[in-house]
């Protein structure tokens, strides 16, 4: 794999420098995978069991919580696109500045932290529903997203992983977020117009 020597790749385990590295311990995969499953399952079960409240607090200046969530989700989607670009820089697929690692880290944090209030509202006020195809996929993938994201974060802590693993998991997280956004915010804007 070609890696720009100037790019700040030290935060990301690429192909390991060690000679003849032994295969990573299975726990390196298993723990993130199990945590991911537990997170996704816990969110889904909460959404299913908890009695949807129907309402939650709204923000001043917005006509509905749907508008608030759509804009927050759109902001998260924007940072997710920054994620995609900065990741391509880190892996040398795009020319990038030395601080692309920092950019990748902080745009990811921003996207995640913006997505959390949206998910909290979804789970608290609406729950996990399956009465419509759009709603079903949104509910399932919404739970899956936070599991996959947890796995990605935990995998970052392990070294000596196969080089393809992080890009694949990261790409999965990005793809899932995109579908979640398409089935919620885009649908909202198309149904109600781009309103605040």
């Amino acid at each position, binding site marked *: 794999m070609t890696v720009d020597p100037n790019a700040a790749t030290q935060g990301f385990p690429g192909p390991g420098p060690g000679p003849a590295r032994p295969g990573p311990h299975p726990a390196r995969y298993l723990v993130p995978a199990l945590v991911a499953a537990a997170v996704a399952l816990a969110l889904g079960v909460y959404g299913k069991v908890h009695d949807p409240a*129907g309402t939650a607090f709204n923000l001043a200046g917005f006509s509905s919580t749907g508008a608030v969530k759509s804009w927050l989700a759109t902001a998260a989607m924007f940072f997710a696109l920054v994620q995609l670009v900065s990741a391509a820089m880190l892996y040398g697929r795009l020319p990038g500045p030395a601080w692309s690692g920092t950019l990748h880290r902080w745009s*990811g944090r921003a996207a995640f932290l913006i997505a959390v209030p949206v998910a909290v509202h979804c789970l608290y006020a*609406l729950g996990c529903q399956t009465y419509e195809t759009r709603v079903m996929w949104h509910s399932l993938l919404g739970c899956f997203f936070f599991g996959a994201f947890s796995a990605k974060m935990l995998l970052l802590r392990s070294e000596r992983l196969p080089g393809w693993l992080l890009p694949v998991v990261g790409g999965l997280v990005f793809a899932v977020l995109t579908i979640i956004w398409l089935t919620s915010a885009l649908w909202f804007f198309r149904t109600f117009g781009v309103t*605040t």
Partner: protein
Amino acid sequence: MKRPGPLLTLLAGLVLGLFLLTLNATTGTKTASSSYEEKSPSPAPSRSAASTAPTPAPSPSRVPAADADYAGRTDDDAAAIAVTVRDGKAIAYYCDGRAEESWLKGDVEDDGTLRLTGKHGAKLDGTLQDGKRVEGTVTVGGGRHAFSADRATKPSGLWRATATVRSAKIDGGWIVLKDGSQVGILTRDGKPSPAPAIDPETGAVTVDGQQLTARPATP
């Protein structure tokens, strides 16, 4: 070497989520402040829809009944009835889906007794049964009906839309029952007629060619 960054990110998300959940659970429909707000785009003038947003009145020194929605039918199956309880106040809607409807309002007593009143002498007496059901009688237009309304969860419950379409005052009320069926009346300048169906997920409804949004009705 272990990096703490990703773990801290996860923890921050968890803490934020729990914080917001607590805020939701404790404040109900209040306007939020704090970190939630700085992330959002700048507020723009909101449309008339904002005026239907609930403005809960504080009721000091009382233990209000739990906020809940109820929907059901009268025992004679002549009409549907829905009750929404928020902050110790209740709003109810009686609707036969054709011509007769009534909005009723009032307080919920600490013991779960409801005594709601509406226009033209409409009256509802009921009791909350452990927050699972409302039972009682409703008197509208001279007819007295016993009813029982079960606890309803979104999207079933009580919806309302008010607007002006081509200079006619539109007031629509809908009761979405547990089985997904809808009973609703639309009044144009005070003249009632059966209402078009709303999308129970969004409240979207088309009235005389105009797209309106019904909102969950609150006291």
